[in-house]
């Protein structure tokens, strides 16, 4: 990492003592990136930007929010009505959570399609799963803060899951609540942790970036960069491409924030929490619905909770479950089909999770749950051994250059 010759004297002076400019130059400008990244590679930087938006809006919301069971709901309404642009900040934060999950889920499925988790990027993937878990905890606790009916009952149902743990379950639930039901101590600690966890996410994101920059991005072909002809500097090429993607994202985001801000929300959460009245259907936020379906697919409570956590924990060992040497699904015709079956399976789980566990939803949820685990635990290890991949291209620039030569 040779220090580049900066023109500005002050920059040179600082960089000699604190090499931040060299660092930025190295990681952004020199950082060689495969030249063939598609728009599916936009979602990583997009997720980082949404994280910043969430932290920025969250800090301002926290200035006006009151974490007390008697005042929380009214303080949120005060933000909506009386705080200058409070409605804007709150709707950005509230819908930002949904968009964060949309972006991250696309980012994860992109990783699955292109085998981004394979050697040498296993730890990069595992750090990503850690981020997902932290996001889920943060989102769950954030949803409790407005102290509406769904906040309260969602918190009650989810924290009660821990009562399924044998022997110490009830004790753990009481400990989590700080009392004998979801109440003011619960709300206070959820607020505290909701403020803390995003900064842990930032820390893990940094580790994610360190791991990423060790070997650089994967690419749609799944083959390694063979030389300088295969790569381009991150800046300005991918900064330009990511900026355009960000613009498209912001159009969609603004469309929801300004014209359908309650699209992802439950009307029940505009009713103040009432421990004496249970809503007809307690449903979590949409991004938790597939896990909720897995939880309810298994008649035994403890096994249901285990299955729900296992559905995410299985992602930690995904790099070793997938035995295929070829990374990209582009060259794995059979895996490619099963990938889309898994995507559909997750949507089915989400749909089942949104509906009451009755009638055909029960059996559909059970089949979809079984398939989810079948995909990871049986299909991937076996498929990698028996599937015959298509021939891989010589290098990244070979297929990129070909059409250009044809045109000329």
């Amino acid at each position: 990492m040779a220090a580049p010759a900066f023109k500005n004297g002050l920059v040179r002076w600082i960089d000699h003592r604190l090499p931040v400019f060299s660092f930025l130059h190295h990681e952004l400008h020199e950082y060689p990136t495969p030249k063939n990244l598609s728009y599916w590679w936009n979602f990583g930087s997009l997720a980082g930007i949404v994280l910043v938006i969430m932290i920025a809006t969250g800090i301002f919301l926290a200035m006006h929010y009151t974490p007390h069971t008697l005042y929380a709901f009214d303080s949120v309404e005060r933000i909506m009505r009386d705080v200058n642009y409070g409605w804007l900040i709150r709707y950005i934060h509230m819908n930002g959570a949904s968009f964060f999950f949309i972006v991250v889920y696309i980012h994860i499925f992109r990783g699955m399609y292109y085998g981004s988790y394979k050697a040498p990027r296993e730890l990069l993937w595992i750090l990503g799963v850690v981020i997902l878990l932290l996001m889920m905890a943060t989102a769950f606790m954030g949803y409790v803060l407005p102290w509406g009916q769904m906040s309260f009952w969602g918190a009650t149902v989810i924290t009660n899951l821990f009562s399924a743990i044998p022997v110490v379950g009830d004790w753990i639930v009481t400990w989590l609540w700080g009392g004998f039901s979801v109440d003011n101590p619960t709300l206070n600690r959820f607020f505290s942790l909701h403020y803390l966890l995003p900064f842990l996410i930032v820390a893990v994101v940094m580790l994610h970036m360190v791991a990423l920059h060790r070997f650089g991005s994967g690419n749609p072909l799944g083959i390694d960069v063979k030389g300088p002809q295969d790569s381009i500097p991150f800046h300005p090429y991918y900064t330009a491409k990511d900026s355009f993607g960000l613009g498209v994202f912001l159009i969609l985001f603004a469309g929801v924030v300004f014209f359908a801000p309650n699209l992802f929300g439950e009307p029940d959460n505009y009713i103040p929490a009432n421990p004496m009245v249970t809503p007809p259907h307690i449903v979590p936020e949409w991004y938790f619905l597939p896990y909720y379906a897995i939880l309810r697919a298994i008649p035994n409570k403890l096994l249901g909770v285990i299955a729900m956590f296992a559905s995410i924990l299985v992602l930690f060992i995904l790099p070793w479950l997938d035995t295929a040497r070829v990374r990209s699904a582009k060259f794995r015709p059979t895996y490619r089909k099963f990938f889309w079956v898994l995507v559909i399976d997750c949507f089915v789980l989400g749909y089942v999770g949104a509906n009451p566990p009755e009638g055909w939803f029960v059996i559909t949820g059970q089949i979809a749950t079984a398939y989810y685990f079948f995909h990871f635990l049986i299909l991937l290890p076996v498929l990698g051994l028996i599937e015959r991949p298509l021939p891989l291209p010589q290098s990244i620039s070979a297929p990129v250059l070909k059409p250009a030569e044809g045109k000329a």
Partner: protein
Amino acid sequence: MRRLISAVALLLAFGTAAEAAEAVKPPKQHWSFSGIFGTFDRASLQRGFQVYKEGCAACHAVTQLSYRDLKGIGYQEDDIKAIAAQAKVMDGPNDAGEMFERVGRPSDKFVRPFPNENAARAGNNGAFPPDLSMIAKARVGGPDYVYGVLVGYVPPPAGVTVADGMHFNTYFPGQQIAMPAPLNVDGVPYQDGTKATVEQQAKDVTTFLTWASEPTLEARKQMGIKVLIFLIVFTGILYAAKRKVWASVH
């Protein structure tokens, strides 16, 4: 452990109860405030406020509103002072340590008809008239549902027995509602010559309650249009920039 079981049992019980009493989906209405250019019809808002004040307010609170908020539906400061002055507000303690009643001010929250939920239930045959300040956001169907319940009173169909003190309503979940039909033809004397049919009053008061649920709705939509225009133009420029930067790579 037992708690989860009871929570799930409760869920199941409520689930089946909701299913047994099939609620009819209220039909979609045309609202002045829907669509991306939607704004509240000011005349309708003021008529709706009149319906609320002379009808609903006897039982239903709108605790999230202050009198000063009425500026948002087109009232002037003097009108608002006069409206607030009609209310009696409990204040204190004064220098002698005693609570006292005073005339309402624009900065006061709307005074609620009952001091607490128990008093409200005692005065309403055991039923609790819900706070209406969020009603248009807090119900599935939103304004269409609020309108549906207001006009949904019909004689019960043959074979349906309505419990004592209850009333049949097509769109209310369970179809039995404690509130008697709240609107009557010409029940509210409109000043502007609008005919006060039940449908008109329902429409007006629903418009008012939608505004009460989100007084910033107009500001939101107006800013949204500007933001979207900016973002679309800006994204177009970003696309052009991307093309130019990448021209040498392809």
